[in-house]
């Protein structure tokens, strides 16, 4: 799902164009330092690796995943290389059961087709496979997310007198979020990305609260976790609002609050995610470098 990877890029561009804060960069620095401080001396990682490893873990127990390019693809491929060897990866370019040996740059990389169980047309992947509700997990990125895990990837309001800032658009996201059994989201944590109010609703997460998905006729249960480089947010079962439930090692709760554009609710007990294992990091780095650590 090419929507996703560009969320990062677009955020960067928007940051360039507008005078928003640089929470992401700050978070990145902090996380990196912390990891080095608290991890096993032999194991260090980047904030992106931390995020990707935790996103991969969130796929535990899933059978089929509709995968976006970029962070979601990295996470899904890592899951397939570690805890979920039978995970079926489905790309909107029409591949069912892709088994790439390295991370594809685009959803059109030839290896996705060459290693697939079946290759179908783009209309078929959307109609017979996604819309039909056959897919357990949809894995999305986002440019802007609100407290109900709704997503904007269309336009940014750049203020009075300025034209809208252009984002890449919807791609597959509206129907992925509607039709998959559940949705995972992965994106970097900043006040620019986690906003009080979306400038445009491209994709509905939990709408305006409980009952909205049913009212709109959205099949799946919607977003169940938003994994960032700072921690994990999950919707409160009562209010459907995102709540901070876990932080990554070395991250503090105030740091997450500061990086969130709305008054973030905090779970009664905030867990701390397990640091990446050496095996996870090795598998992730092998994927990124094009190697293959499997036997």
């Amino acid at each position, binding site marked *: 799902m090419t929507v996703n990877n560009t969320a990062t*890029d677009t955020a960067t561009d928007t940051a360039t164009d507008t005078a928003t804060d640089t929470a992401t960069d700050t978070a990145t620095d902090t996380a990196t330092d912390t990891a080095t401080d608290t991890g096993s001396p032999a194991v260090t990682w980047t904030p992106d690796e931390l995020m990707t490893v935790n996103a991969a873990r969130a796929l535990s127990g899933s059978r089929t995943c509709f995968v976006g390019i970029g962070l979601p693809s990295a996470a899904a491929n890592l899951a397939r290389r570690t805890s979920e060897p039978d995970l079926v990866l489905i790309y909107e370019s029409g591949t069912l059961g892709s088994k790439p040996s390295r991370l594809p740059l685009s959803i059109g990389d030839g290896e996705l087709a060459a290693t697939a169980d079946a290759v179908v047309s783009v209309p078929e992947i959307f109609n017979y496979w996604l819309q039909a509700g056959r897919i357990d997990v949809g894995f999305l990125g986002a440019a802007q997310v609100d407290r109900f895990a709704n997503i904007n990837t269309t336009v940014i309001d750049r203020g009075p007198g300025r034209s809208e800032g252009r984002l890449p658009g919807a791609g597959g996201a509206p129907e992925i979020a509607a039709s998959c059994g559940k949705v995972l989201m992965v994106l970097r944590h900043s006040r620019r990305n986690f906003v009080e109010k979306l400038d445009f609703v491209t994709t509905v997460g939990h709408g305006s609260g409980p009952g909205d998905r049913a009212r709109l006729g959205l099949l799946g249960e919607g977003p169940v976790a938003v994994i960032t480089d700072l921690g994990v947010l999950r919707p409160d079962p009562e209010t459907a609002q995102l709540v901070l439930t876990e932080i990554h090692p070395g991250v503090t709760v105030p740091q997450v609050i500061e990086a969130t554009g709305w008054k973030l609710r905090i779970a009664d007990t905030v867990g701390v995610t397990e640091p990446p294992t050496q095996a996870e990091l090795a598998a992730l780095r092998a994927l990124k470098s094009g190697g293959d650590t499997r036997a």
Partner: protein
Amino acid sequence: MADIRSLRDAVAELVHDGDTVAMEGFTHLIPFAAAHEIIRQGITDLTLVRMTPDVIYDQLIGMGVARRLVFSWGGNPGVGSLHRFRDAVENGWPRPLELDEHSHAGMANRYVAGASRLPFAVLRGYRGSDLPERSSTIATVTCPFTGEELAAVAAVNPDVTVIHAQRADRRGNVQLWGLVGVQKEAALAADRVLVTVEEIVDELEPRPDAVVLPSWTVHAVAHVPNGAHPSYAAGYTVRDNDFYQAWDPISRDRETFLAWIREHVLEAP
């Protein structure tokens, strides 16, 4: 019945000012060479249709070829923004660009309706999204059996569809394989179809996962080896990921972009 001819002649005959043109290829088999020929011939005022505008439409838009874009995801896959697309939308440079914006599911179904020669297609889509507010080609229909309200999208029927394929035979039958995207639908939805191919062969040997467009659905075939670069043709070429990365700095700046087009398109064959 398809004629086999030069790319220049085929574009001159089939693509006209003001046409609605779909150049498809979902991240694979993108017909870049044909797009460059459109730029060289100075064809303009096009309505461009494509699910993923990609670098190919960034180039056409940056050269002012298009007055309108119909699409569902406009980025440089794996890299970032399409800067010429953004510049046109945000700043009207080199000319304003109208948008008709969909989701992928919606666009795919618009082509399906077009290929089926139905006026619209039905999907369970766009629910709760702001997208329908900005498009006149998204509406609703009610199921006459269940009462469920569903999204309806208007058919796309381009004047011309341009695709790139691996092979054609001498009679103009076309064969493509690998990620076949929405090309069959885009071709069958159009009034005129132009196909550039890597190779022209005596006989099309059957291939797994291949789509065949019979000669009588194709109007012109042009032999253009590597005609998808920097995209690729599975079995013939590989995706030039470096080019996609390099496009980001080239396209950020108007002058750098124009210089690149001059050197690599206008002054190229």
